[in-house]
């Protein structure tokens, strides 16, 4: 039995690696002073993990720890995306070390702790992705969430950061209760906690205890919708995004979505697969609502990060649709994966470019971008590229991912949903264009043009921006850059 545990642990290295790395960094932090050593350890460790995961992409499906975790082809990919995002966020955090203002100086004293939290929540992420038991699902989600609460409060001497963490925690805990209730009812209806057992019980007993399952579905949809920020569960998102440190905002906008959508994918198409007729309409409705209202709400936002928050809400809607479209036997996970890859890259790139300019002393209003194209052409150009990619315009990669989702929607006869999604995109174009207009078509100069630009001595931000721009530009014209890779990783090709 112990051998089994050992073997499983070895197999689960892509998951456990996170925790091991976190503890390693913790030890380094305890043993040494300064922030650089833990930082290097984190970066190198993450790179190592990425390499390890990348080389083990096609290891086949494995059940580990008595069915608590299941690593299949999609896991490796989700995990790799997660690793990539973590690396990027760590890199995005680095330039803050050089900042001289009080907030940064004080906060960055705790930088190693931040890295550890980051790695732990990464661990939570990968557990969440791999979960095939209600217990691991819950724990993974909570590890991720608690880690993120801490990250949001990173600038602890600043009221906005603290407030965002505080609110996030409060409302997040509230949603945890909903989530737990959902799990409880799934367990109550089936008596099992393992996905495969639950699935077989539901299928064999022809929806025994249906009312309990229905409550479970309602609770779980609500909980997932909250984490994915579907309308009307979205209201915390703008506040949290606004207050959190910018790299952490990027983290929120990407990691949470990756983890939660992966979990939702496994839950809804896993043991709820046979109830698809029942939950699909609710889920779809929420997705469409998010796409439409998310975009409408973004129109009148005053601050940049809130606008981007709403943009991410609408993208959540698309992700949700992509999740539904992975319908086993009919669709593939490909659109979902592609969406995640491209969306994450673009978001990271965008937030990196913004953190170049951002000045924590002041709220970053959308109007501040005025005339940026004249003063800081390159920054504005990159922001423009990312904005266009988010708007889903060809030839940027943002178009391709929307295209694949639309294609899958139509293939599965959801034409009405496709039209609604498109209406959302059109509305969305309006505020994306507003940003472009402010940057390139205004004669006046906004305050962002005068702010001191972050010194990026290690070129890390520029690296991220550049890579993301390449992906979003070339990725639209030659999608095989990532598409072939995704397809082969998913063993679809």
């Amino acid at each position, binding site marked *: 039995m112990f051998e089994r545990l050992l073997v499983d642990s070895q197999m689960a290295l892509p998951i456990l690696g996170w925790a091991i790395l976190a503890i390693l960094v913790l030890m380094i932090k305890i043993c040494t002073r300064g922030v650089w050593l833990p930082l290097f350890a984190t970066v190198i460790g993450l790179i190592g993990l990425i390499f390890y995961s990348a080389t083990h992409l096609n290891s086949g499906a494995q059940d580990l720890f008595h069915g608590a975790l299941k690593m299949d082809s999609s896991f490796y990919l989700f995990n790799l995306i997660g690793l990539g995002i973590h690396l990027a966020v760590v890199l995005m955090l680095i330039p803050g070390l050089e900042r001289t203002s009080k907030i940064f100086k004080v906060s960055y004293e705790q930088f190693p702790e931040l890295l550890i939290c980051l790695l732990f929540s990464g661990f939570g992420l990968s557990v969440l992705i791999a979960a095939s038991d209600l217990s691991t699902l819950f724990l993974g989600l909570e590890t991720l969430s608690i880690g993120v609460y801490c990250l949001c409060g990173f600038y602890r001497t600043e009221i906005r950061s603290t407030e965002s963490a505080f609110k996030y925690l409060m409302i997040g805990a509230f949603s945890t209760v909903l989530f737990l209730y959902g799990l409880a009812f799934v367990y109550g209806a089936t008596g099992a906690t393992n996905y495969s057992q639950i699935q077989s019980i539901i299928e064999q007993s022809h929806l025994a205890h249906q009312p309990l399952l229905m409550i479970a579905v309602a609770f779980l949809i609500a909980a997932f919708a909250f984490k994915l920020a579907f309308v009307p569960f979205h209201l915390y998102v703008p506040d949290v995004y606004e207050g959190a440190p910018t790299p952490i905002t990027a983290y929120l906008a990407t990691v949470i979505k990756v983890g939660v959508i992966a979990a939702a994918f496994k839950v809804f198409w896993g043991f709820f697969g046979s109830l698809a007729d029942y939950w699909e309409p609710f889920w779809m409705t929420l997705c469409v609502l998010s796409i439409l209202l998310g975009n409408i709400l973004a129109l*009148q936002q005053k601050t940049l990060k809130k606008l981007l928050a709403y943009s991410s809400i609408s993208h959540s809607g698309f992700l949700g649709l992509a999740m539904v479209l992975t319908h086993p036997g009919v669709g593939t996970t490909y659109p979902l994966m592609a969406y995640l890859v491209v969306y994450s890259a673009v978001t990271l790139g965008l937030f990196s470019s913004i953190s170049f300019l951002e000045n924590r002393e002041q709220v970053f209003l959308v109007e501040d971008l005025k005339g940026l194209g004249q003063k800081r052409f390159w920054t504005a150009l990159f922001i423009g590229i990312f904005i266009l990619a988010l708007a889903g315009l060809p030839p940027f990669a943002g178009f391709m991912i929307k295209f694949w989702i639309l294609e899958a929607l139509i293939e599965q006869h959801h034409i009405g949903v496709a039209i609604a999604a498109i209406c959302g995109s059109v509305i969305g174009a309006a505020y994306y264009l507003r940003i472009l207009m402010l940057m390139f078509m205004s004669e006046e100069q906004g305050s962002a043009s005068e702010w001191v630009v972050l010194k990026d001595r290690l070129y890390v931000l520029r690296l991220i921006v550049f890579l993301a721009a390449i992906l979003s530009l070339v990725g639209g014209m030659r999608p095989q850059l990532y598409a072939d890779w995704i397809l082969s990783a998913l063993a679809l090709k």
Partner: protein
Amino acid sequence: MADLKLLAALCVLIPLVGSTLWFWLGARFGEKVVSIGAVTFLVASFLCMLGMFFGVHEAARVDFFEWIRISSNASVHFSFLLDPLSLTLGLIVTGVGSLIHVYATGYMKGDPSFGRFFSYLNLFIFSMLMLVLSDSLVGLFLGWEGVGLCSYLLISFWFSEEANAIAGKKAFVVNRIGDFGFLIAIFALFQVFGTVSIPDILSAIHLGNLTADQMFWSKIACFGLILGASGKSAQIPLHIWLPDAMAGPTPVSALIHAATMVTAGVYLICRLQPLFLLNGGSLEIIAYMGGLTALFAASVAIFQNDIKKVLAYSTISQLGYMFLAVGLGAPVAAYFHLMTHAFFKALLFLGAGSVIHGLHHEQNMHKMGGLRKQMPITFWAMTVGVLAIAGIPPLSGFVSKDEILHTVSTSGRTALSVMAFLTAFMTAFYMGRLWVLTFFGKFRGHHEADESPLSMTFVLVTLAILSALGGLLNWPELWGGHELLNEFLSSVVVQKKIEISSEAFHHSLLLAGFSSLLGLAGLGLAWLRYRNFSGKEFEAPVFNLFKKKYYIDELYDIAIVRNLKQIGWILWKGVDGLCIDGFLNGLGTGTTRLANRLRGMQTGLAQQYAVWVWIGFLLLLFGAWTVR
């Protein structure tokens, strides 16, 4: 044949080349070169035409190249049809055109845009020749619109006056209405015959065997052509542009708005006479249209004070005669009148031009008078013209008009006959008025008048001779003449021959006597009324109607132009602005407002956010309950 082709090409191209040349280089070459060049070019063109006239037996087709291919078996060619009909008119165009060019060299002397004027004039000759010679309807249409364009350009030649520009625009637009009819006719004919070549269409008509559907379309084509002809030839209801067209220089009025272009409608109907014969009703329409126009225009002409306006209405009236004749199945008569009219009306216009020139651009007849002493040549030439148009034997006008009156009186349509005779009388009267007011009595103007230069008087004299002797071309056989024109045209158009019998002879003699009497009466009345003119015209309410041209311009303005403007405004502000943009902007502002309203949800109160989470959950729960 090759020679013919070369001649035809030269005949048309020379004016075109001239047109470009004078425009490009007019300013550089100076007036002398331009005037000599333009006249030489025109004379060359006339000579080519003459060559063709004598080189062609019966008819010939000259094909240059394929212009537009419509489908695999139908195409439009740039090709000419040289037959008596086209050649005759071609000769008139180039011949009278040359004379008027000569005249214009004198008339336009000193004008800053001398070169431009001759450029337009040459371009007009080119277009008119295209119109006359083309063997396809589309080629004809090219000329048709081309002359319209030149008319437009020449009317607004002195464009610094806004009114001239507007008159030009009016002429073009009204012509365009006619052209629209022409276009529809082309389409309808293509629908029926699958070709746009005039000889092909005519031969298809000769073959007959048209189905009911084809008959319908050919009827439509007739109406279209009538509309087109009435536009170009200024017949009711599209006559309104011609009086305004007098804004152009007088040689233009003579050439375009009297002698050549405006007769294109008559030419067109003659050209396609078999088509109209197929649809008898349409000929009736033409006849009544002509008669009505003739009477109407004559009645208006009596009350015009502008010498050119009088002549313009006279032109409309005379064109009405031609239409009347064509409508009653006497195309040769119409054609004959066309020809003589070209002579005497050109003469009258040029004479008037000479007067105007002499009086430094004074056109009001009330300010003339007694000019016969200062301008003897002009006076005598004009006298010939006046007598010709008034129908005093044996001048050309008498002969050609008499033929028309004969046709009318034998057609058995009393109304038309009354109109025709009434018009003849009125024509004599207003021409007499013009003559008397201009040349007799006391001089009422300010400037001293001089006789015009030789280039002008020479032309006047030439035209006077032509007007006097033009009648010989088709002197009725009844009176022992030789109907040259009739013979010549008989291969192209159909006209009933007048039998030579003593009864007919008596009848025609009676008619001739009556019409000459009418002419003399008109002239005499004018002499009596205006010999001692004191500035007082006839005053009566009904004359007011005549004076105001029956208020037709005003009617069109109110009924059509203003309404269209209004509609344009409504479409712009209403449909585009209010409906479409309003809808879109409403959508935009609605969304924005919704966004603002929804933004109110972001109160920053965490618990309110949680309430929304709860409510969302509640809705899901409710959904779950109902689905169950």
